């Protein structure tokens, strides 16, 4: 058994429900995550799948501690990070990186690519390590002087990946990173990510609403519905013999590019 990089136990997140807030007093709490438990072993790729409102994005943001859990525990590399303050979290940040869904909003529009990638390392944009990171994601070093809006969607998403891997992290969370891309860029980004996982020995959590992009990349898949895990299985088993009705529904709903398969 490989040692777990992340260990999540009974993770809960709730938010105040402002639509049902009484005039005086606190709003009732709305449960977003209802007690999730799972491990992410070192060097594996975990898929997290679910529809909108399933809580998959909230789960991701809790893992990288952008939001504070209201219950349960998150252990990273044996250290409990559930309630660490921003200050105490900072030394760990380099090791836990994230790639965002919308590369337009996740890249500062008024900074050059060189500064965006370099800032994470505390480097100047001309530094060799910045161009190395760009090369690793298949972009020319000349891109350091470009601004995000001058790039295509696929190129922007590669910048997001370069920024994450430049920190040499142990763990990367990828939140719906191909959902806004054309199929060709999507294939490029997925292949790139798969190569990097192998090459750098990354541990990756890949959030997606689309099961069809997960099959080749992930070793194991968690299916979420309404804030709970309904199925947690190795990828092949999940695709061949889905156990939960919701997983079956998700699989059946994918329009495969083959008119002979009934839908």
């Amino acid at each position, binding site marked *: 058994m490989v040692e777990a990089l992340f260990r999540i136990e009974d993770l809960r997140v709730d938010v105040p429900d402002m639509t049902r807030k009484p005039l005086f007093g606190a709003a009732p709490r709305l449960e977003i995550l209802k007690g999730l438990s799972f491990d992410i072993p070192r060097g594996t790729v975990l898929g997290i799948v679910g*529809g*909108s409102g399933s809580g998959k994005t909230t789960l991701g943001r809790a893992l990288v501690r952008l939001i504070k859990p209201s219950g349960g525990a998150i252990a990273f590399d044996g250290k409990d990070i559930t309630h660490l303050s921003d200050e105490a979290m900072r030394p760990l940040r380099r090791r836990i990186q994230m790639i965002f869904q919308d590369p337009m909003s996740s890249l500062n529009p008024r900074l050059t690519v060189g500064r965006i990638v370099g800032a994470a390392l505390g480097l100047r944009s001309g530094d060799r390590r910045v161009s190395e990171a760009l090369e690793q994601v298949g972009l020319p070093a000349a891109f350091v002087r470009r601004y995000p809006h001058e790039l295509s*969607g696929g190129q922007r998403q590669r910048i997001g990946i370069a920024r994450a891997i430049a920190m040499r992290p142990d763990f990367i969370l990828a939140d719906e990173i191909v959902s806004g891309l*054309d*199929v*060709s*860029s*999507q*294939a*490029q980004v*997925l*292949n790139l990510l798969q190569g990097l996982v192998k090459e750098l020995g990354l541990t990756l959590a890949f959030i997606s*609403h*689309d*099961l*069809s*992009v*997960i*099959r*080749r990349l992930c070793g194991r898949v968690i299916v979420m519905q309404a804030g709970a895990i309904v199925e947690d299985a190795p990828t*092949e088993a999940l*695709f061949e013999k889905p156990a939960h009705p919701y997983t079956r*529904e*998700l*699989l*059946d*709903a*994918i*329009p*495969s*590019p*083959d*008119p*002979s*398969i009934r*839908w």
Partner: protein
Amino acid sequence: MSAFLEIRNLSARLRDTGERVLRSVSLEVPVGAVQGLVGESGAGKSMIGRAVLGVLPKAVEIVEGEILLEGRDLLKAKPSERRRLIGTRTALIPQDPLTALNPSRRIGPQITDRLVDILGWEKARATARAAEILAEVDIPQPERVMRLYPHELSGGMRQRILIASAFAAEPKLIVADEPTTALDVTVQKQILHLISQMQARHGTALLFVTHDLGVVAKICDSLSVLYAGKVVEETTVQKFFAAPQHPYSAALLAATPRHTDAGASLEPVPRAVLDAVSAEIAADDASWRRHG
């Protein structure tokens, strides 16, 4: 039966730079058929739908070609005639159900307005028709829903209402512009089934704009694959998925994920294919300029 919509040699360009955005596009949609328009972002697939409905962005101008609706050329018709033809014969199912409905008006009038103002129906008849068509798309208690505001309904319900609204006036042609892109897969399946059902029952022709070859495989009869405003392949769905003819459309199909196949790898469109199709387009542009 002949084509209900026929586009012949349609070319359009940007007003300020003169760059061609549609390159001699020709296609036919027979009565009651579902025609897919597929391509990556920027391929001009939405532009064709917009040209048919007469709502191209200001920056784009049509430089040549014909858009024939029941044999009459929309581009040569007088503006009032064109508005009447488009208003009575066509409808749109838009992409984003969240912004396509006016948030500060009730559902009912948003459906009946068109019937009353453009088709000149009586108010009572329009209201009855709206209730009838809402029931047809499986909306429970249509009379109650017509009194609600959009924010009181879920995304899936709103998309149903937009579909009902498109079919309300019994148009002969509906342009569906990526109608399910913003939805979850499970909801997408329901909505696409609903569109198919309604289309078959009413015998409406459908021009279906999408980036997803999977969706095309499920609901279209034939398709046109676009690259940079040019139709690189036009064929039936059966033939296309059996053996795509053009290298670019074959590459596009290879890049589309197949979850049913464990060993399937995703191949991005190869550089060589893009170079070849770009060269084809450049040659095309050169000969177009010589003739024009």
